[in-house]
């Protein structure tokens, strides 16, 4: 019998009172586990956490290494979306904590009339208005206007400020004060010239291909810099990042770094 079929028989879909009963039962179990974990001594608690971490990672490692059939799945593939949903549910729980943090900090600002408390009033009012309109007036023009005409406009305004920030950053970056800055300036100039019509027109008299002189066309040099030099450097960086990510994932999965930096010492 397939694992998915067995689990479907053990945990069939529930509706109505059986569903409510199951939810209450799970809640009671979670509360019990919460207090049980708190009652454990720290060393045992760390072992439980390390064990849970290992089992969680083991599922994904097994699912990847288990050979897949012709349909591209193995006996564990069916559970991947469900396990992913568990992570989403946990993240959704933490959203409540995030909202509480916002209300606590800005409510405190308003209550104590700290500097800028008026902005906190606007934030809290905006949060309430968006939440209420989204919950009760989602299909109305009111909510759509708030989202499309207010929120999206503010997003676009912040994105637009990037244009000015890029100019100021580029001015500082392209000041020629070292060999590296000079090289970067020349490379940037060539790449930019190769992408704009006026730059391409500078060397348009040179044949595009079929001649050794084609190498001197601005657009060819620009393309070479981007696809050969730049791509090679990016791939080299990505190799290092990939290996680094694997190392950290292994350390977390096998709890090798316990006591390394989040705690003062391993017990």
């Amino acid at each position, binding site marked *: 019998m397939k694992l998915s079929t067995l689990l479907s028989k053990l945990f069939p879909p529930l509706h109505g009172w059986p569903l409510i009963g199951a939810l209450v039962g799970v809640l009671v179990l979670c509360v019990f586990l919460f207090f049980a974990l708190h009652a454990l001594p720290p060393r045992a608690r760390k072992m439980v956490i390390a064990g849970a971490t290992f089992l969680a990672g083991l599922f994904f490692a097994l699912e990847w290494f288990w050979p897949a059939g012709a349909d591209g799945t193995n006996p564990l593939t069916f559970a991947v979306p469900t396990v992913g949903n568990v992570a989403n549910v946990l993240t959704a729980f933490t959203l409540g904590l995030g909202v509480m943090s916002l209300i606590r900090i800005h409510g405190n600002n308003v209550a104590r009339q700290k500097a800028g408390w008026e902005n906190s009033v606007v934030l809290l009012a905006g949060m309430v208005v968006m939440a209420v309109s989204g919950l009760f007036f989602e299909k109305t023009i009111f909510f759509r206007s708030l989202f499309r005409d207010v929120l999206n406009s503010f997003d676009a305004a*912040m994105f637009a400020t990037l244009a000015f920030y890029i100019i*100021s950053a580029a001015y500082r970056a392209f000041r020629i004060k070292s060999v590296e800055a000079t090289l970067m300036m020349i490379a940037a100039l060539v790449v930019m010239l190769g992408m704009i019509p006026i730059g391409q027109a500078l060397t348009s008299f040179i044949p595009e291909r079929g001649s050794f002189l084609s190498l001197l066309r601005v657009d060819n040099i620009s393309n070479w810099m981007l696809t050969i030099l730049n791509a090679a450097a990016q791939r080299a*960086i990505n190799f290092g990042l990939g290996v680094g990510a694997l190392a950290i994932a292994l350390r977390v999965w096998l709890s090798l770094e316990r006591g390394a930096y989040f705690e003062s010492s391993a017990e």
Partner: protein
Amino acid sequence: MDHASNSWPTAFIVILWSLIIIGAVRMAQAGRRFYIRRIAGLNAIDEAVGRATEMGRPILMVPGIGDIGVIVMQALSIFSYIAKTAAQFGNRILLPTGGGTGPAIYTVADEVMRESYAAAGRPEAYDPDSVMFISDRQFAFAAGVSGMIYREKVAASFLFGEFYAEALIFAEAGQMVGAIQVAGTTQTTQIPFLIASCDYTIIGDEYYAASAYISREPTLLGSLAGQDIAKAIIWLLVFVGAIGVTYYSATGGQAAMKAFFLNQWLTPH
């Protein structure tokens, strides 16, 4: 879905690298000492915290807007070290979180900061309001953090994590208030902007080396040594592949190049 059976040589390489990294960690834990080259950006962390102490202005730490995962955990490990130093000097810290999993990062960051202050022997100095959730939307988060930078006039700004377009907004806001800025990200598209705007930038796998560099813990140093051995294997494969492809394409044409064993071995089927 992708599985190891799509490319067994890739799975073999992953297992090989994992064994190398675990082996190096075990060697380090047994007492073997490994060398790390100097990384200017990480040396500057202490300088930045010291400057913030002298100026009496807060320290800003931003873990990016990525999903909670290895990148954010690495950022929080760096911030843990900064927080310990800040706690010893009595500096104020600001740690705004945001993005899709911002609330989850907020809860983890709060715990990490609390433990850092406790490890520095100053648990009573920790201000719970120093870690806050701003927004799950990218530019709302950018607006909140840049406003914080301008209002608080932070003296030191640490941008470590997964950043997108908002990276330049943070970095330029820090430049405007005269903050010393150290940034590190895995997003290669944002590295040029951070290099242009920040005083020090950690590039590529220096980001993952940061925790080993700062703490000098044997486990982390061993992991770093294992990563370097794995990268040496990649270098060897790239070198052999480049020689082979160049030779076969010069002598045997496309068919010979496709038949070149590395091409066959490593390309997914």
